[in-house]
């Protein structure tokens, strides 16, 4: 099965976020970049499926030239090929992004059986790129997937719902949006990182269609609820007071 994993370069998750002076971006001068965690799981799944079925895994990203770094990581994680849809601007809207990806898939000679995305990117959280891509290509799609099995030409995909799981069966070719936790992405070895540096990255230069009507004005940090915690005590001595709170204030005992 030939797979395409679409990934995104995002600022390191977990880092302290500082905004630029104009509040239109995150100040990345002291920040590293990484692959968006949901998509990293999508890539890992693509590689595993390709290896299990004797197919190929291709990593694709849309972004500036710096996103080459995440494609090298993808190659080091055993993706067979990498594609950069290079843009001038760091941030494209969801419809333009999806259209560029769908155009690439339509025009390439490679035919992919399974296209994997993060359900939402960690930074923008737009929740729609995989669905726009699938709709433009006329493929079935399901999102928020935490487990995938491939059975011949069928993808069995599961997602959490109401304390259990919903099971979907999609005939390939198909699009699946995944969530972090789908699998445990591998750490690339030093040797595979060295090899990845030498591999070729296919480059394309899509133009934005300007059809997105969702325009960012500025970013801001939300106000923090700075409570004034009542200190119940130090160490186990606080226990009687905690029990009192559980019984009387919260009535959970």
């Amino acid at each position: 099965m030939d797979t395409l994993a679409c990934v995104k370069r995002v600022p390191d998750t977990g880092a302290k976020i500082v905004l630029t002076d104009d509040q239109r971006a995150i100040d990345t001068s002291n920040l590293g970049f990484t692959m968006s965690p949901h998509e990293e799981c999508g890539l890992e799944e693509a590689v595993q499926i390709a290896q299990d079925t004797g197919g190929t895994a291709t990593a694709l990203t849309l972004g500036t030239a710096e996103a080459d770094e995440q494609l090298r990581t993808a190659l080091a994680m055993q993706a067979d090929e990498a594609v950069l849809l290079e843009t001038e601007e760091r941030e494209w809207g969801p419809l333009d992004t999806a259209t560029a990806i769908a155009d690439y898939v339509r025009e390439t000679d490679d035919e992919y059986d399974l296209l994997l995305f993060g359900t939402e990117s960690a930074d923008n959280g737009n929740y729609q790129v995989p669905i726009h891509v699938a709709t433009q290509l006329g493929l079935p799609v399901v999102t928020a997937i935490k487990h995938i099995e491939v059975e011949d030409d069928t993808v069995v995909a599961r997602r959490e719902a109401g304390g259990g799981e919903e099971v979907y069966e999609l005939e390939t070719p198909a699009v699946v949006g995944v969530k972090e936790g789908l699998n445990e992405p591998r750490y690339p070895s030093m040797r595979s990182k060295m090899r990845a540096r030498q591999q070729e990255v296919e480059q394309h230069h899509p133009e934005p269609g300007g059809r997105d009507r969702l325009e960012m004005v500025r970013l801001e940090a939300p106000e923090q609820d700075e409570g004034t915690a009542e200190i119940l005590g130090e160490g186990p001595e606080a226990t009687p007071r905690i029990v009192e709170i559980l019984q009387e204030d919260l009535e959970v005992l």
Partner: protein
Amino acid sequence: MVLALVEHEAGVPEDSSLEMLTLARGVAEETDEPLTAVVVGAEAAGVADDLGTYGVETVYVVDHERLDDYAPVAWATSVDQLAADLDPDAVVAPGSTRGHEVLAHVAARREQSMAANCIEVTTGEEYELTRQRWGGTLLEEARLGGDTKLLTAAAHEVSAEPADSPTEPAVESFDPSLDEEAFEVRVTRHEASDVEGVPLGEARVVVGGGRGVGGPDGYDQLEELADLLGGAVGASRAAVNEGWRPHDDQVGQTGAKISPKLYVACGISGAVQHMVGCKGAENILAINTDPEAAIIQKARWAVVGDLHEVVPELNESIRSAN
């Protein structure tokens, strides 16, 4: 008119849908237009009374024998066709898995973009929005254009407030035109979770453990506390990255968003990425050795101490109290 997609379980609206209706009602009031709801599936008509409490004037029940099971394209086609008939100013859905998915399909069918996870909306030719990014770590002020605006409301952000004047909604049936393709992707079966106990997202009490737990074995005490309180165990990203807990337990930016009555945060520093996962908690009790830890600033109650000493003693006291 504002058209709101309401999710329900056997005729009882989901909390996230009631929150969304509160946001949608604000949009409707600002435009001086009625608030209308669309519900799909078996027992959908049963939600009408509840929706009147939230100011909905008309409830459209999507009437189709195959829509009892969820099928994203069939749901989206139904909403899209109804929206084409009604020509609303905006279509709003809850920021749930289905809400995002269905509205994204509507957006794709209309070749426009939707705005996900909105928390404030000001109407106009273009809407001015505040929406969550980075799972709520950052907010974005944005402008959204298009004839019919498509947006989802962030879950656990806007509290569900009944309308000042409740309504008695008219209930209308809507019969969409759906071909076989609309059911190509559908829920083929439901399976019970193999995880025992209360699901994290629904737990009334969550006992969370972070780096301070020190290893996978340390969670035994937390499991016991969660059991005694009828709750569930959660974990910070640090603990999940260490491999101490599965990702399903992760509370935070890329994990679960929880809204328990009580969150007991044990050995968790309180990084902003974790706090966006637990800010829906009504109360936080922090147990931490560091009195300067960020979590203590954000908690209602705090114990300065080692969780490995506090939690076993607490478990013993609760057992005695029971």
